[in-house]
């Protein structure tokens, strides 16, 4: 097509700018600057993540020097309580924090991108409230089956998502963003009310649910991760596949369709992946909703790019780093009292986020 000759007699064709020798020149400058800025942000995230891992493994009720941590991990340390602390308590907790933080960051990035709405987070599709209900149900009504807690959170988080998607993706105007968000808020209200009802009915046992609802990691080994890992895996794979299709939604559904994409399917896929990641995260760490909302915004503001190729993986790194650092700080700040990381991170994070917001938007 571009090779088609433009006849010299066609007057309108001559109206186009005759030559632009510098057309390719400005690329390097602008793109290079943007790319460098994003690379810096990614690098900062990785440094924070590595620092967070080191802090999470060494700090706590017992301070373990980094060298000893390394020896325990590589099997060079002799058997003993120190090795036990590292391998059975700190390692699972650190891994949980990385996975949960990354999952929440990615879930928020997927939903904000897919719905084109900066307020979107796993709350909006009802997943958080569903998972909360599932967990409280087990904690208060079936306290003897506490091992089922992650399963309960996963199950009801998924049920909430299925109800919301069922309503939003059927009938005329299926896949409308407005309908999805309204259905999500309604389902969220319903599960919230159910949770409150159980808490009123079993008010003598509420104590045990408070820590979970506040959101926080525990040092209980690998049991929860053994239940939740397939959800994380599938969610992560779907997220990776959707990165490029999500970028095609940026100019609206009609342009996306022009490019051969199917906006509704992309949105459904992103919402399903976010639901899997968020309910699995809730199963491990309770309700840490703030992370999913804020991390993608911080990443976009810091990197100056809305491309999902940048935002999704970087949100994973930042989410993991933030939760690791927050969790370590919550453990250490008022030791031996352990603060729940959820409220702690919100209290520390909101002023930072507001400051960033004022500067950037």
């Amino acid at each position, binding site marked *: *097509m*571009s090779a*088609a*000759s*433009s*006849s010299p007699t*066609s007057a*309108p*064709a001559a*109206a*186009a*700018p005759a030559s*632009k020798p510098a*057309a*390719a020149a*400005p*690329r390097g400058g*602008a*793109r290079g600057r943007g790319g460098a800025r994003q690379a810096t942000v990614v690098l900062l995230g990785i440094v924070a993540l590595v620092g967070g891992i080191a802090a999470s493994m060494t700090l706590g009720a017992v301070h373990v020097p980094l060298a000893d941590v390394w020896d325990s991990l590589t099997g060079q340390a002799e058997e003993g309580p120190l090795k036990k602390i590292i391998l059975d308590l700190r390692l699972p907790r650190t891994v949980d924090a990385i996975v949960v933080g990354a999952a929440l960051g990615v879930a928020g990035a997927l939903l904000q991108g897919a719905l*084109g709405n900066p307020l979107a987070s796993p709350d909006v599709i009802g997943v958080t409230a569903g998972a909360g209900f599932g967990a409280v149900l087990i904690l208060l009504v079936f306290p003897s089956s506490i091992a089922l807690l992650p399963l309960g959170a996963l199950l009801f988080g998924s049920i909430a998502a299925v109800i919301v998607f069922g309503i939003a993706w059927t009938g*005329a105007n299926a896949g409308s963003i407005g309908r999805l968000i309204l259905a999500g808020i309604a389902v969220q209200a319903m599960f919230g009310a159910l949770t409150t009802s159980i808490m009123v009915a079993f008010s003598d046992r509420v104590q045990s649910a408070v820590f979970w609802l506040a959101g926080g990691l525990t040092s209980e080994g690998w049991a929860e991760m053994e239940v939740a890992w397939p959800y994380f895996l599938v969610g992560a794979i779907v997220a990776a596949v959707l990165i*490029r299709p999500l*970028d*095609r939604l*940026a*100019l*609206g*559904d*009609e*342009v996306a*369709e*022009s*490019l*051969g*994409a*199917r906006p509704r399917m992309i949105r459904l896929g992103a919402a399903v992946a976010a639901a899997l990641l968020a309910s699995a995260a809730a199963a491990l760490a309770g309700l840490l909703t703030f992370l999913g909302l804020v991390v993608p915004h911080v990443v*976009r503001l810091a990197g*100056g*790019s*809305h*491309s999902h190729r940048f935002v999704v993986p970087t949100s994973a790194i930042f989410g993991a780093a933030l939760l690791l650092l927050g969790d370590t700080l919550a453990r250490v700040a008022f030791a031996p009292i352990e603060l729940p990381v959820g409220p702690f991170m919100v209290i520390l994070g909101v002023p930072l986020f507001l400051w960033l917001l004022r500067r950037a938007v």
Partner: protein
Amino acid sequence: MSGPLLQATGVQVQIGEARILHHADLTVSRGELVAVVGPNGAGKSTLARAVAGMQKLAGGEVRWDGEELKKLRGRRLALLRAFVPQRPRVPEGIDVRQAVEIGRSPHIKPLARPTSKDRAAVERSLERAGATELAERRLHTLSGGELQRVQVAVALAQEAPALIADEPTAHLDLGASATLAKLLRSLADEGLAVVLVVHDLALAAAIADRVVVVSDGRTVADGPAEDVLDRRTLRDVWHVEAGLEADHHGHTALRVDWLGAPRHELATKETLT
């Protein structure tokens, strides 16, 4: 390769209970600019979306390059036609070049990175649409006319042989409309098949090889503007007394009896003065 690039016959579209298109025909060949005109709500945009494969057909047949639309999906369809929407979404945080790079995506294989060929195509599209100077600007800082040129650049990056534009001049001032009209005409002269949905009959008459009139979900006329947009059609379809004046050098005007005064009164006044 012989025959029209797009051939749509008897197209019907139903949205919910409402039948939007009853029977519409549309053909366009390479190097041809076809204007689709008609009153508000007649079904022009629906016809454009239907032939682009963006609206489910309730009946009729659409063929692109001889191939049935039903069998064309995703990337294959994207390499046959590009669609320029009436009101594109204008996201924050995206500059013009990034937007045009999105238009290139059908050429990039899954999990692959854009090649130097893709980057060259993006630059070519920017230049062709007169948007090279805008390349570093953020989308939400552009004027309406600039934004539509960028939309055309996004579509050109697709490098499809056909371009379908849905009322791209609807919200533009006179100068921006003229710039866009010139651009679309020159693209057709270079071999692109262009379908332009447009309200402005004078503009349509000036740049289109053929004009297709849509009225109440049916295509009621198809041909050169001077044949199709006669007084009777303007009266029957738009319910207005008007006449199109055109020469063959792209000068057109629509003389409209805006206030609907009976013609003889107008004539009387003219004879009096």
